[in-house]
């Protein structure tokens, strides 16, 4: 519990300050209006979505090398948290796009790869749910996690190149081009807050799973003692 605190307070602080900046400090964008503020949620969510799959990749490899349940826990937790943030991106995207550009969705490289990322998360989590043996669950999802994670950048690149032949409507053009200093600051702050939030949620999820493991170990110990006592 002690180690939880060191993330908790900075995260809360960052979130509060970011919220203030997003809604009050940052100026209203000239062409898009208030709706543009979604940008401060949308892009950082995408970033944490990708962070999640990178962690799944990293932890899955470590699990396969070391066969240590701890890495399995971390990989699965990263997938869960990453999936949540990716879902947020896919929801906030259309919410932002419809009022401003009049379309819900465009198949540009970023959104398409986010959608594929979401599907990979889903596949990973469903796979875990359907495998009953804990060892098998860990091992097979680790293999898929690695394959899926390698795929994500390839999907992105292939979409980029595909787009050069098939131009699509452009959305979200104002992300990194022509941001006012105050908006840039807000954006970076929000990005940091989301990252902290990701790690906080990740650790919490890991802790829950570790506790469940410990509970089960105690349960078995109790059963063994009971038997041997008889």
């Amino acid at each position, binding site marked *: 519990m002690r180690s939880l605190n060191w993330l908790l307070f900075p995260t809360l602080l960052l979130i509060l300050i970011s919220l203030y900046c997003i809604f009050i400090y940052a100026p209203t964008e000239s062409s898009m209006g208030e709706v543009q503020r979604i940008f401060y949620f949308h892009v950082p969510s995408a970033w944490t979505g990708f962070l999640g799959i990178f962690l799944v990749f990293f932890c899955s490899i470590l699990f*396969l090398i070391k066969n240590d349940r701890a890495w399995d826990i971390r990989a699965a937790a990263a997938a869960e948290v990453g999936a949540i943030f990716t879902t947020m991106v896919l929801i906030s995207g259309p919410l932002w796009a419809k009022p401003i550009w009049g379309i819900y969705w465009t198949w540009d490289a970023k959104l398409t790869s986010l959608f*594929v990322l979401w*599907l*990979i998360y*889903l*596949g990973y989590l*469903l*796979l875990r749910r*359907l*495998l009953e*043996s804990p*060892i*098998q669950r860990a*091992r*097979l999802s*680790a*293999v*898929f996690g*690695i*394959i*899926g994670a*390698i*795929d994500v950048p*390839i*999907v992105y*690149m*292939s*979409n980029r*190149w*595909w787009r050069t*032949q098939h131009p699509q409507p452009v959305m979200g053009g104002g992300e990194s081009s022509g941001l006012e200093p105050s908006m840039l600051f807000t954006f970076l702050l929000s990005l940091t807050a989301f990252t902290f939030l990701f790690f906080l949620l990740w650790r919490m999820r890991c802790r829950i799973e570790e506790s469940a493991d410990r509970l089960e170990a105690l349960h078995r110990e109790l059963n063994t003692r009971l038997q041997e006592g008889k």
Partner: protein
Amino acid sequence: MKFLNQAGAILWKDLLNEYRTRDALTSMLLFGLLVILTFHFAFEPDSLETQKFAPGLLWTTFIFAGLLGLNRAFASERENEALQGLLLAPVNWGAIFLGKMLANLLFMLLAETAILGCFAIFFNLSLGAKIGWLLLIVPLGTLGFASVGTILAAISMNTRMSDVMLPLLLLPVALPAAIGSVEATAAAFSDPPGAALAFWLKFLVVFDVIFITVPLLLFDFVLEE
């Protein structure tokens, strides 16, 4: 080399198995015909539209037919737990992957050839000049798909919903190969073949290299336990 001999033995066993039942090939071919029929009635395309949509439709058909084939890939191993027998043998498990992957590739290529023929007939496509390119594109595109498909089929066969699990896992991962194949085919069909053709062919090669190496390295972990 012993490794290749063993992979060859497994490949031969799968071919023999398929020859006895003809399960996979018939279902894949029938599926292709159904798609052709459905497409015609759903869209009633004129010849210009057909030309435009042909690459995409062709590869969509290939992919879904391929999924049918892959689902069966490990079905024969599941009965009587035959896979255990394989694992117990002094076989490098990578040889199992290679053998199975080649078998899947062969079945897919056979089905694809038949489906392509049907496409040409039913949609009056003139493929004559393009056959050369197709002979290059189709195997390249199918190879990566078959390779990732084999390892993912091995993974999904452990779940009770393996029919659903495999497409869910495979389609996102194989998407780049699909894009590359469709674009390469479209480029090949246009007169003259666009510069994009060379690009997407190279892309497919890179995809294949990555997605043969990675599954090969990871396959042991799928079979253990």
